[in-house]
Each structure stands twice: as C-alpha cells, then as structure tokens.
C-alpha cells in the first residue's frame, strides 16, 4: 500500500516536472526583460505591439467563423447520421479523422493547386476568398474534435424519439435542429468550439502558406527576431489554451443536467 502510493507520487512528480519546468523557466525568462529585476515589461511590449493586436484580432475573427462553419456542418450531419444512417457512422468517423493523419501542409498545397486564380473555383484570387478558404481549412482541421464532441453529446439524448415528438407537434427540420437538438447538445458543441478556438489561434502552416496575417505566423516572426517577447507570447498562448480547456471542464459540469433521463 505505502510503496505503491510512493511510486504513484514519484511518477506524478516526474511527469509534472517534465511538463512544468520548461514552462516555469519560460515564464521566469519572460520576466527578465529589464536588467536586474523581474518585470512584466516583455508583456507590456507585446500587448502594445500593433501587429500583436492586428494578428490576434484576425485570428479571433477567423476562429469565430470557423466555429460557426463547424457547427453548421457538424451538428446536422452528426444528427442525421444518428437518426437515419447509423451504418454510415464508421465511415464518417474515419473521414473526420483524416485531418489528423494528413499534414496541414499537404492540405494547403492541395488548396493552392485546386483553388488558384486560374481554377474554376478561384478562392485565392482575392483576399476575402483566401480568408474564406482559410476558414474552410480550419474547419477541416477542427473536424475530428468537433464531430466527436457533438456525437458524444447526441448520445446523451434519445434523438429519434425527441425528433418524432417534435415532428408530431408540427415542427419542421429547422425547428427541430435549432430548438431541440442544438440546445440539448449545446455543452458538447461549446467544448468543440473552444477546442477549435485553441487550434485556430496558434495555427501556423495554413495561415503562413496562404499568406494571411494570423497570430501563428506572427508568433513565428517574433520568435525568430526577439529575445524576451517570444517567451511572453508562449506564456500568453498557453494561458489562452488553458483558459479554453478550463472553460470546457466547467461546461461539462453542467452537461448531465440537460440530459434526458426518464427514471
């Protein structure tokens, strides 16, 4: 008993140090911009940088549109598969996993070939078009997380019976999805949304190759040219990601309450 307890703690401490020491070191370094004292000078410089504001703002807007696109795409799809085509589920699950297997760089080169200015669908011919393509690309990257989150949410409700109950009361598909299905999987959708947000905020490859002014390429640029600011940015990025994760944790506490549990 005592011995196993000891080893459990030992493993935990080793794991935690592996994770925390670089983080703490980075944080400590980020505070040393001013010679001889700890200060948040690096953070002040970062936050004051107009390029930080512009790229961060750009990425937040792109993340929001990505989430909207993801929800519009995934909720009806996952719902329809649960309701009418359960045999299709393994196939769709496999497809949603592809973005984890295919590197983003492959996807983006595919985009550049497919949607160039001379192609039938010239997304890349205009700046707006490129933004749209970036959002579509991000929605693809977020697909594995979004689909799984929504599908898990749908598992907690009796999709078929609730749909029929709404139908017989006169509801059409938009009402059913908007007023019954979506609200009941909202917590799951929000977890998927925050995961998407975390992914989009730090993404580099797609934004860089499509030449869009996103936060990821900015991080890379600063990292290559400055000393203290990259450390501050790394800590900020971590804080954002952790913030998103804790929001997901908090949200999942509320989940069981909305579940349909006839006793």
């Amino acid at each position: 008993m005592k011995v196993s307890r000891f080893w459990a703690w030992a493993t935990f401490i080793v794991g935690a140090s592996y994770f925390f020491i670089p983080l703490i070191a980075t944080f400590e370094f980020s505070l040393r911009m001013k010679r001889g004292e700890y200060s948040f000078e690096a953070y002040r410089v970062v936050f004051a940088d107009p390029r930080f504001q512009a790229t961060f703002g750009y990425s937040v807007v792109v993340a929001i549109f990505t989430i909207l696109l993801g929800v519009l795409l995934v909720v009806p799809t996952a719902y329809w598969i649960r309701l009418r085509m359960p045999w299709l589920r393994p196939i769709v699950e496999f497809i949603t996993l592809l973005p984890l297997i295919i590197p983003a760089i492959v996807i983006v080169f595919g985009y550049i070939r497919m949607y160039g200015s001379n192609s039938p669908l010239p997304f890349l011919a205009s700046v707006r078009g490129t933004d749209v393509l970036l959002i579509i690309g991000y929605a693809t990257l977020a697909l594995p997380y979004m689909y799984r989150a929504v599908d898990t949410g749908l598992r907690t409700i009796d999709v078929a019976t609730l749909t029929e109950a709404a139908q017989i009361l006169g509801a059409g598909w938009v009402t059913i999805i908007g007023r019954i299905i979506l609200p009941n999987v909202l917590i799951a959708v929000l977890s998927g949304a925050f995961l998407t947000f975390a992914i989009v905020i730090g993404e580099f490859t797609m934004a860089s190759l499509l030449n869009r002014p996103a936060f990821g390429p900015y991080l890379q640029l600063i990292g290559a040219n400055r000393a203290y600011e990259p450390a501050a940015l790394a800590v900020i990025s971590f804080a954002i990601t952790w913030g998103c994760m804790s929001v997901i944790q908090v949200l999942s506490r509320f989940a069981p309450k909305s579940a349909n549990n006839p006793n």
Partner: protein
Amino acid sequence: MADPFLSIQSVRKSFGNVAVVKDFNLDVDRGEFVSFLGPSGCGKTTMLRMVAGFEQPTSGTIKIGGKDVTYLKPNQRKVGMVFQAYALFPNLTVAQNIGFGLRVAGKPRAEIEARVKEMLGIIKLPDFGARYPYQLSGGQQQRIALARALAPSPALLLLDEPLSALDAKVRISLREEIRSIQKRLGITTIFVTHDQEEALSMSDRIVVMNEGRADQTGTPFEIYNKPTTRFVANFVGTLNVLKGTVVNAANGQVKIGDDTVMLDSDLGGRKAGDSVSLALRPEAVSLGRNDLRETSVAATISEVHFLGSVIRVRAKVGDNSVSLDTFNDPSAPPPSAGSAAEISFARRDLMVLDD
C-alpha cells in the same frame, strides 16, 4: 351511419421481406377510445406509427376525418402522440414543452400562455410550469407529455404504451386519469398496450392483434366473454380449454371426458366424431352442483391453492385441466387434492373455439 372519423383500410406493412402488419382494417368513430392489444412484437407500434405518419404502409389507405393521409408527413396530420419514454424536451420547461406545438404553429404568446395554464389545470399539475423535466417523477412527466400532445387540440390522440415505464400504483391512477380526460375532451384516441387489464378497463373497443393481424375487434365485454379465436380467448383473461368430441351435431351434443353435454352454440359445421375445443372462463365454473348452472360433469381435484378470501382449484375432467375460483367458506374446509368432485357450468357460457 355517420362516416368513421379514422378509417384504416387493408393496410399492410413489410420491413424487407418480413410482413409486420397484415391486412389491417379498422373504423374508429369520433370520440371513441380504441385499444390495440397484443403481445410484444405483434405490430401494434408499427400500426400506430403508420397512423402518426412515421411509417408509410406498404399498401392500403389511412383516412382521418374523411381525408386520405396515407402519405402525409407527421407534422401535417394534426395528431397528438404520447410515447412510452415520455420524450419531453429536456432543455425546455414544462410550460414550454406544453406550449411547443402552439409555438410551432405561430400562435400569439397570450393564447399559448392561457392554453398552457388550462392544460396544467386539466392534468392537475397547476404549479409545475417553471420546472424542468428532470425535476419530475415518471408519472408527472407522462402527464406533461399528455398535456403537450393535447395542447394544440389535435383531432386524434395516439398513445404507445404510455404507462409501461411506470410503477403499478401510478399506472392505475394514470389509467383512470387518461380515460377521464379523454372523455371530457371527447377526443378520438388510440391506445397501444400489451396489458389486457389496461385495455379492458379503459377502452370503448379493443382490437386484439396477433402476428400483425387484427384477430378480433369488439367491446371489452365482447372480447372477454365472446372471443372468436383461440388466440384472443387465451390472450385475454385466463381460460380453460376443454377438448371434446362431437356426438350429435344437430342438437349440439359433445362428449367431454366421460360425460356428454349439450351446447347452445353453433358447432361451426363440425360433424359427429369431429373434435372440438370448448372454452370456459374460471368464473363461469363452480364446484359442486349449482342451481344456475345446469350442466355438471365428473372431475378430480388436482390442486388447491388457499389465497385467503378466494380458493383457486384445479380439477381434471378427462384429460382436460380446469381452473376455477370459489370463495372461502369459514364453516367448510376447502376440498382436498385427489378427491372426486363435480363441477358445473351453464352451457351458454361454453365458447366454441375456431381451431
């Protein structure tokens, strides 16, 4: 005769090669309460879902109020439905659940509020509007589901085993409540159940279903006392089946065990020497001679169960086993197993079963 309100004509339904509902015919009058009764898997739910519009018949016609709705979508039928699993919307309050149909129909807010209040009164849960489904017991949830189905004033109410998930006490009180609300609103209702007691106690008429067919349709009294098929006779209530041989078809003489009895009923074209199955309800048989039951046959007591006020006796008549109930008489000990006895019954209570 007025046209029936709901008319189901020659409806069949197959899933792949499996015929689940076969040649189903039924006319239901306005305001009538009709039950589909049958064992699990006999096609009750499938037939009900075709009336609701969730399934389409392979062939046949369904008319509601004279209008052919066979291929109409469920949300265009103005039908209310209550499900076994309640199926309340978990994200909506009780009041929002009840008002859902009216909201979808675009009714003004004030009208919805008034109707929700009225429905909450009808189901005797006036103060529950602000609660969520997960805060309610099963019985309360099912009453809300009933109110939700009735709020848009549907022309037809469908209930699919609405009481099966509830415990016995709630089941019985809700049974009475559903029936009284149905009578008060005069709404045409189809009630699906596998519980014969439910069907017998609630319905104007019962359709007994067997393997996708409507075996017999009739009032609870007819179904119980005059079953026309062996399946119905067996499924509804307890039944004693006596095998006999026709002695004389013209005057209805049948030999059962060592005795010959006379029948009132038609022997259905059987001739002397043919075998015939006769059925008797336990309450139509008494032990010993009885002034009101003119026919007696010799029997041997095989089992005696003392249940308090009632004594359940099994007796052998020839190869047949007959079960009967007698009241406990404090001044006389119950019969003992193995002893010889006479049992009597009235010949008008004997039912001839189609084989």
